């Protein structure tokens, strides 16, 4: 349909339309019980790894800080359950390597109510105070990147932010956690948006929502109106909710800004260079709930879905819950699962073991049975036939065909220098469309890693 796309003006050029498979778009968010033990890895986010502040066999209360560091690009962790610290040491992580973790055995019958927290009134508080409070909640980007939120909301000295872009696209197939949060927690979202606007000094906030979620747009607009009718209204500025065309990877911040404002963020630049800060709806909704209560991040909404799950849904899962427990609860006991994907199917990561815990940046647990993977799996890999499908789908306007051939020849320097490999953000569109079944994204990941190592060793 290349011909049609010429007449149909779209938000950003190229991109793909994978089947959406949003099985859980209409199911309510449910709460998961505590597992017997939770494992809180210290390394759950981008930045410095915090250190445990609790001792072995120490009693902890849900919401109590258990790890922290003074480093700016890092966040503290909080105990997800009330119980006893049973073990502090190495445990497997979703990424593969074993990392330092705190294992807490939950008290039987412990309540899921947050017992630790100091409610706070932020009336008249300065931006820096709010940032400090955000730091204390241990909030990171819940969309998947797990970048500390306070760092993302910190505006560099020479820059000025006028717009807060709230990312409610959720362009990954299967995932619906942001969708349900927008529908069910729209008021929390607006509170979170207002805090983020105060922290950054933005005078408007725009919630970008893909147009396959009209109920989310309505819910957020209704919440905006409710907030505007409160005494005092919204002194921070104005908030809009805007539908954007459904297309993968609309949820990438560059693509979303293109859809809303029609501007390209210059290569190598950040949205802040255009006066914008982008944040995920899940993050801001959680912030809106935690910040006034003075609590820490102890749970998150996770989409548990996939063809291999009997009770797919969006669950509020205490952080540190083993994936095995989540899947047992969701009705995927010893299923013929071929693959467990953490995150979305386009950019998520395959879990190496079921004993890894849910972490802050994990938006979904996908159980793939193999039917939907089968043609991926049993398919033959051909040499590149230069069909140009990848060139037609790369949202960054790269040439994955040529890049792939260079990667096969290990011409990594050339890829970086002449073919803009650094611009690739590994969205997976090229691998998705490739009829020759070439693992292009994997080749690019390897190439980027090698280039990084080369740059370090220089």
């Amino acid at each position, binding site marked *: 349909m290349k011909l049609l796309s010429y007449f149909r003006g779209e938000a950003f050029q190229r991109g793909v339309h994978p089947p959406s498979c949003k099985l859980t778009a209409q199911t309510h968010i449910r709460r998961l019980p505590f597992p017997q033990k939770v494992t809180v890895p210290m390394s759950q986010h981008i930045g410095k790894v915090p250190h445990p502040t609790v001792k072995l066999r120490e009693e902890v209360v849900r919401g109590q800080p258990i790890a922290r560091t003074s480093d700016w690009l890092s966040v503290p962790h909080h105990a997800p359950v009330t119980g006893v610290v049973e073990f502090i040491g190495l445990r497997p992580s979703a990424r593969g390597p074993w990392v330092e973790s705190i294992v807490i055995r939950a008290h039987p019958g412990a309540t899921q109510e947050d017992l630790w927290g100091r409610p706070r009134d932020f009336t008249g508080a300065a931006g820096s105070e709010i940032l400090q409070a955000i730091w204390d909640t241990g909030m990171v980007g819940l969309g998947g990147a797990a970048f500390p939120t306070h760092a993302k909301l910190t505006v560099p000295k020479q820059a000025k932010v006028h717009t807060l872009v709230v990312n409610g696209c959720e362009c990954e197939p299967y995932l619906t956690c942001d969708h349900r949060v927008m529908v069910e927690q729209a008021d929390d979202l607006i509170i979170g948006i207002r805090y983020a606007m105060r922290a950054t000094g933005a005078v408007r906030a725009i919630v970008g929502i893909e*147009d396959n979620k009209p*109920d989310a747009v*309505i819910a957020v607009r209704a919440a905006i109106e409710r907030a505007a009718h409160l005494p005092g209204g919204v002194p921070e500025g104005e908030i809009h909710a805007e539908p954007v065309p*459904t297309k993968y990877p609309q949820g990438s911040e560059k693509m979303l800004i293109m859809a809303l404002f029609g*501007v390209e963020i210059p290569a190598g630049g950040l949205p802040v260079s255009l006066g914008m800060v982008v944040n995920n709806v899940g993050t801001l909704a959680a912030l809106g709930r935690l910040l006034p209560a003075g609590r820490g991040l102890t749970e998150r909404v996770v989409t548990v879905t996939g063809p291999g799950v009997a009770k797919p849904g969006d669950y509020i899962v205490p952080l540190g819950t083993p994936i095995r427990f989540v899947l047992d609860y969701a009705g995927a006991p010893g299923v013929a699962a071929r693959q467990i994907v953490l995150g979305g199917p386009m950019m998520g990561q395959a879990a190496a073991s079921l004993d890894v815990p849910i972490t802050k940046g994990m938006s979904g647990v996908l159980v793939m049975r193999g039917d939907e993977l089968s043609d991926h799996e049993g398919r033959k890999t051909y040499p590149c*036939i230069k*069909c140009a*499908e990848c060139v037609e789908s790369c949202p960054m306007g790269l040439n994955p065909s040529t890049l792939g051939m260079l990667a096969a020849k290990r011409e990594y320097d050339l890829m970086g220098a002449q*073919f803009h490999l650094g611009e690739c953000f590994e969205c997976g569109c090229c691998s998705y*469309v490739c009829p020759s079944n070439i693992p292009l994204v994997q080749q690019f990941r390897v190439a980027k890693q090698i280039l990084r190592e080369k740059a370090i060793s220089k």
Partner: protein
Amino acid sequence: MTIEIRSAPHIKSTTSVEQIMRHVVWSLLPVCAFYVYQYGLSALASMVVVTASCLATERLFVKTGTQSGDIRDFSAVITGLLLALSLPPGFPLWMGVVAGFVAIAMGKALFGGIGFNVFNPALVGRAFAQAAFPQAIASYTPSFLPGRFYEMIPSSMAFPLMQPADVSEWLKLKHLDALAGATPLAKWKFEGVLASAEELVTSLSGHMAVGPSPALILVCGIYLAFRRHLDWRIPAAILGCAGLTAWLLFAFSPERYPNPFFMLFSGGLILGAIYMATDMATSPVTPKGMWVYGALIGLLTVVIRYYSGLPEGVMYAILLGNAATPLIEKITQPTPFGKSALARLGQAKRGASYALHPGYISREDAGAVTPKKRFLRNKPKPNERPGEREP
């Protein structure tokens, strides 16, 4: 329970190489059927033999391990059918076998098989046939001969390594000798006779020795373009550039040059533009490159047709275009996101939903509206309340 680890993306579109090639073969079948209807048994025999030869050669090279791919990917079938369509219907079958072998062996296997070939294999085979069998390839028989479904054209059945018999004697028996051995292009070039438009487009009337029907090929090509199995830019550029050049020359001197319509619909231009120049492996991958490549082929076709000793120039034009492909790709690399002129200037595209300017206060004040050209599915109405919409 064992779980597997694979790298993202974990889902994949179902389009595969085999599927693309199969679709191209299917889209070629109506063209082939009409060709058989035009020329009868000989055309059918030629098609079967040439395709079989291509498949056998492909299998041979796959077995000996010098090339990737397999006959199951259908790419050799496409080569065989296109080669047969580009040869005269009465082409001696043994020569067809040789041409098919050369097409796959020298056009494809030599470079490493599917995806690695530099030149379109079918055209390599045809170029070889043109050089090796100049008489046989120039002798077209008229279409719609009476009795074409019962007897072969005598030249088809030439003994291996023998030159074919002259068909003019045989044609005399059919009382059609005036038309023997001339395609519309050859007639124009050597006799100055222009074929009528109707004859050229549909190939249905008269006994003019035209090739496969251009109208049918266009229809099949449009189907393929909609299935995204060929890039519409290449045929558009070729036909556009050839038509434009021919029209300019025609306007300059209508006596010397035929009209652009004749240029577009005679000979193998449509077949070449839609099925041969668009061969994925030998055409550029960059969108801009496709325009350049197509324009080059269109221009070269007109130049070869008008100014060389040959009546037909599509084949050499496409082969030259194939040769230029790496260079074209090199100079037409796409501009990455964030490096365009728009991004350098920090300017917004027209028609964006929101103004970027920091001085912006209210969307209504700024007069910005959501652009109409975007098709937003299920866009909620501004005054819709929650619960009004069924989930």
